[in-house]
């Protein structure tokens, strides 16, 4: 295979190259949104709804407008637009109705932050409270209060099917084989229900935006958004203005995204204000409570799984029903549901499957993408179920998984396509070995495992330019966003490898939609694969142009040429010349070589509708101990094996795994967004919504499995999303081994665990 050859010859790809942004970051010189300074800037503040569901009877802004230093006060009627990636259901500022506590109702721009904060308190809003819907299963009942009466009128993505006059904003079905026949032929059929809690991204950098509306009507937005081009498209759709009247500029760095910093967040209110300030820029930075209540959460979900097996553990049929609580607006909820469903029966050769997914409105804050994209929820259901079945059949959990796991050439159990580049079994085996699966353990200690496969959004496109400067240095120009994952370094490595130019001569830009070409998004673990391919193609194009010049200068064929360490040479070494000299030889007064590259997978369909261009595979095993008296969990070790196709930078891959695992332990053990009976978030801060600290983090064995992908850049696939998908479920499975308690809801807080331990002691069952 060609990729194998490439692995042998790579000089930069596959190496532990230090991140190209590390020095800036450790010295405090890296620039994030709030570090940018603007002349004559105004500060915006948003007034938020205290009600989960209410009609807005009247808004009186007159007192706020009279406050000295206030420049603009806006409500929904001043910017009557609706946005939303999957369904265009979300007003820039509430119009007529509020649908969650924390929803933006009005906004003020003022000369100083304290003036804006004071002014919003003077805005008088008269509400008529409506019954709130605060549970996903209540929301789908026939008589549930409607959250969006006009659902059937909203424009939406091609793959979305709405259920008019209900709270189900999207439903999906994946089906293979004959599910009823599968159950009939099974020796045993198991069924259970699993609940997954609401979570939060907790990016350490808060959300913000700066918007300037020029007097010609051009809107410029500085924002750390994970998809600048998608943001431009969404705003264009919402506002009916052309792409080139919208400019999105990414600050050089984003302080963590995890899927949360996409779509329309602070931008709409900030745009609404900036349309009324006579060209003065408006800056809004959310405080931490607003980040919790009014940016995005991770979907709470209910999963009902029914699985039919033979006595020997062969899975014959799986029927999964997944209900995602998407909150007040659809956001990415429908596509989160698609991916959760696609992986809804797990990475197993199940011949008969039916997965039904429901994206459901409630009066909770908006839920959307959070690392894993619907899979932590579906995994919690089907991977808990696999362990329960193995236990009933008396089969070892690893054996049960290896027996059923997909391998090269297997049929994707939900979509029916043929799987290639499949490292599933190796992941399971290596995670099991690293955690010493069969080692006897003392009482109250146990190991658990969970495994998964995941699609990337397909089809989607990326473009890149590779600019060769007159001095032989290189700029890689793309709209991929450095969210912390290291994409700038990865793209520099790929360009360096393809061009034969050392890393230190390569710079990678940040997105600016006026200058950097289209990229679908830096999400779905797609950047290394899609943008990596685009950059590689652009580098090839640039190289062709360099060779054309050098071939003339050397009087040889282009086929005889190569570039190594930035020197263009005839392959037999007879003639060589620096890149800069090659360019100056032709263009004495100076010119630029511009390589162009695109990547768009050759797969028919609209976004998210098609089989994935690649699938990632992973297995994680957790070794933990439970204190039976306190319910407290001590995690001793996590072994995480992930098939990434090819690790362009192993240190970066390990970093992704380590970060995802700790986030996953947080999800499994203590993170949960809590609401009161009126739908108000009760723990919107780091004291009460505790995320893991250095003390909570155990030893992690990061294991990189490389099942090369034919179409990936140098064989690479992706990693980021996969790294926390299995962790919470592996925790649950380990708790069962340690205590005999089978949790069907998360997180495994000491209170919850203790309650189940006591129940089990008293009644012999934890249910």
């Amino acid at each position: 295979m060609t990729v194998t050859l490439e692995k042998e010859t790579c000089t930069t790809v596959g190496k532990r190259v230090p991140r190209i942004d590390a020095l800036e970051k450790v010295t405090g010189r890296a620039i994030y949104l709030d570090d940018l300074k603007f002349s004559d800037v105004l500060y915006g503040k948003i007034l938020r709804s205290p009600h989960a569901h209410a009609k807005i009877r009247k808004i009186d802004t007159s007192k706020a407008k009279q406050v000295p230093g206030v420049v603009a006060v806006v409500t929904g009627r001043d910017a009557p637009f609706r946005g939303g990636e999957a369904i265009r259901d979300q007003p820039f500022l509430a119009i007529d109705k509020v649908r969650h506590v924390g929803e933006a109702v009005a906004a003020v721009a003022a000369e100083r932050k304290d003036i804006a904060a004071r002014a919003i308190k003077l805005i008088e809003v008269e509400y008529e409270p409506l019954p709130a819907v605060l549970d996903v299963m209540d929301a789908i009942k026939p008589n549930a209060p409607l959250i969006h009466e006009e659902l059937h009128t909203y424009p939406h993505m091609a793959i979305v099917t709405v259920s008019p006059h209900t709270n189900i904003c999207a439903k999906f079905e994946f089906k293979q084989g004959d599910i009823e026949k599968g159950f009939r032929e099974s020796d045993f059929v198991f069924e259970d229900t699993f609940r997954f809690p609401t979570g939060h991204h907790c990016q350490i950098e808060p959300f913000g935006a700066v918007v300037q509306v020029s007097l010609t009507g051009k809107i410029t937005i500085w924002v750390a958004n994970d998809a600048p081009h998608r943001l431009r498209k969404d705003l264009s759709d919402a506002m009916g203005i052309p792409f080139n009247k919208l400019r999105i500029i990414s600050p050089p760095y984003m302080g963590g995204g995890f899927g949360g910093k996409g779509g329309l967040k602070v931008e709409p209110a900030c745009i609404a204000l900036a349309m009324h300030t006579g060209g003065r820029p408006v800056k809004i930075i959310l405080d931490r409570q607003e980040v919790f209540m009014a940016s995005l959460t991770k979907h709470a979900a209910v999963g009902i799984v029914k699985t039919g097996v033979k006595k020997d553990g062969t899975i014959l049929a799986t029927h999964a029903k997944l209900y995602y609580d998407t909150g007040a607006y659809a956001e990415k909820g429908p596509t989160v549901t698609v991916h959760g469903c696609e992986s809804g029966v797990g990475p197993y050769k199940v011949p008969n499957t039916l997965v039904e997914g429901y994206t459901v409105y409630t009066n909770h804050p908006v839920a959307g993408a959070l690392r894993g994209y619907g899979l932590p929820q579906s995994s919690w259901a089907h991977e808990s179920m696999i362990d329960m079945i193995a236990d009933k059949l008396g089969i070892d959990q690893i054996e049960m998984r290896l027996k059923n796991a997909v391998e090269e050439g297997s049929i994707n159990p939900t979509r029916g396509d043929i799987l290639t580049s499949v490292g599933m079994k190796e992941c399971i085996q290596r995670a099991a070995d690293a955690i010493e699966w069969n080692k006897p353990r003392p009482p109250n200690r146990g190991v658990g495992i969970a495994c998964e496969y995941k699609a990337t959004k397909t089809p989607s496109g990326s473009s890149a330019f590779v600019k060769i400067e007159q001095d032989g240095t290189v700029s890689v120009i793309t709209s991929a966003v450095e969210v912390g994952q290291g994409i700038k370094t990865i793209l520099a490595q790929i360009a360096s490898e393809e061009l034969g130019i050392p890393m230190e001569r390569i710079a990678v830009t940040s997105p600016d939609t006026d200058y950097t070409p289209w990229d679908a998004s830096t999400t779905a673990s797609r950047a290394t694969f899609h943008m990596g391919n685009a950059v590689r193609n652009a580098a090839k194009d640039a190289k062709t142009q360099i060779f054309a010049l050098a071939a003339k200068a050397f009087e040889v064929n282009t086929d005889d040429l190569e570039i190594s360490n930035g020197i263009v040479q005839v392959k037999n070494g007879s003639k060589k010349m620096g890149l800069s000299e090659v360019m100056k030889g032709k263009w004495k007064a100076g010119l630029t070589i511009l390589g162009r590259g695109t990547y768009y997978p050759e797969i028919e369909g609209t976004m998210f509708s098609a089989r994935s261009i690649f699938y990632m595979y992973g297995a994680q095993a957790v070794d933990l101990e439970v204190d039976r008296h306190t319910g407290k969990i001590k995690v001793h070790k996590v072994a995480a094996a992930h098939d990434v196709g090819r690790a362009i930078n192993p240190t970066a891959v390990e970093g992704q795994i380590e970060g995802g695992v700790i986030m996953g332990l947080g999800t499994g053990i203590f993170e949960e967004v809590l609401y009161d009976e009126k739908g108000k978030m009760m723990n919107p801060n780091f004291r009460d919504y505790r995320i893991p600290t250095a003390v909570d983090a155990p030893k992690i064995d990061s294991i990189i499995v490389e099942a090369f992908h034919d179409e990936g850049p140098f064989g690479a696939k992706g990693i980021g999303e996969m790294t926390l998908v299995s962790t919470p479920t592996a925790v649950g499975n380990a708790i069962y081994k340690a205590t005999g308690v089978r949790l069907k809801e998360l997180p495994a807080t000491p209170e919850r665990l203790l309650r189940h331990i006591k129940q089990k002691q008293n009644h012999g069952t934890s249910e």
Partner: protein
Amino acid sequence: MVIFLKHVKFRVNGDEKELDASPTRSLLDVLREDLFLTGTKRGCDGGECGACTVIMNGKAVNSCLVIATELDGSEITTIEGLAQEGKDVHLLQQAFVEKGAVQCGFCTPGMIMTAKAFLDLNPNPTEEEVRNALSGNLCRCTGYTKIVEAVLTGAEEIRRLKH
């Protein structure tokens, strides 16, 4: 509302600073908004995330919790002032680069300042001590593994330099 300002003199990264401080503002506000030292990050404004950690009179503090009027006579070091005379980076910063301890980088300055103040007191710590010392600094990207490695490596390098 009448706000009484207090004239304060203090040093930041060795430079003398003077200003009329308001009790409604924090050291973090002063650093970021008056002195344009934006390397110190604002994550929560409530002393919970540690992103705004600086060294004040030899101790790591959450600068969002220090009231500006308390600054008189104090000595502040921020991430911008950490590198020793004539060097671009401090050994700890170098260790963070080499160990791959940086991802999004937003927690990094605070994390490094906490580690610096800690190593000044405990130059030869165990891994557990490092983890405890860093427990007030939240990181959502790295899982802490490489950060802890970097602090231990940095400690070793600092000790080596002193001998």
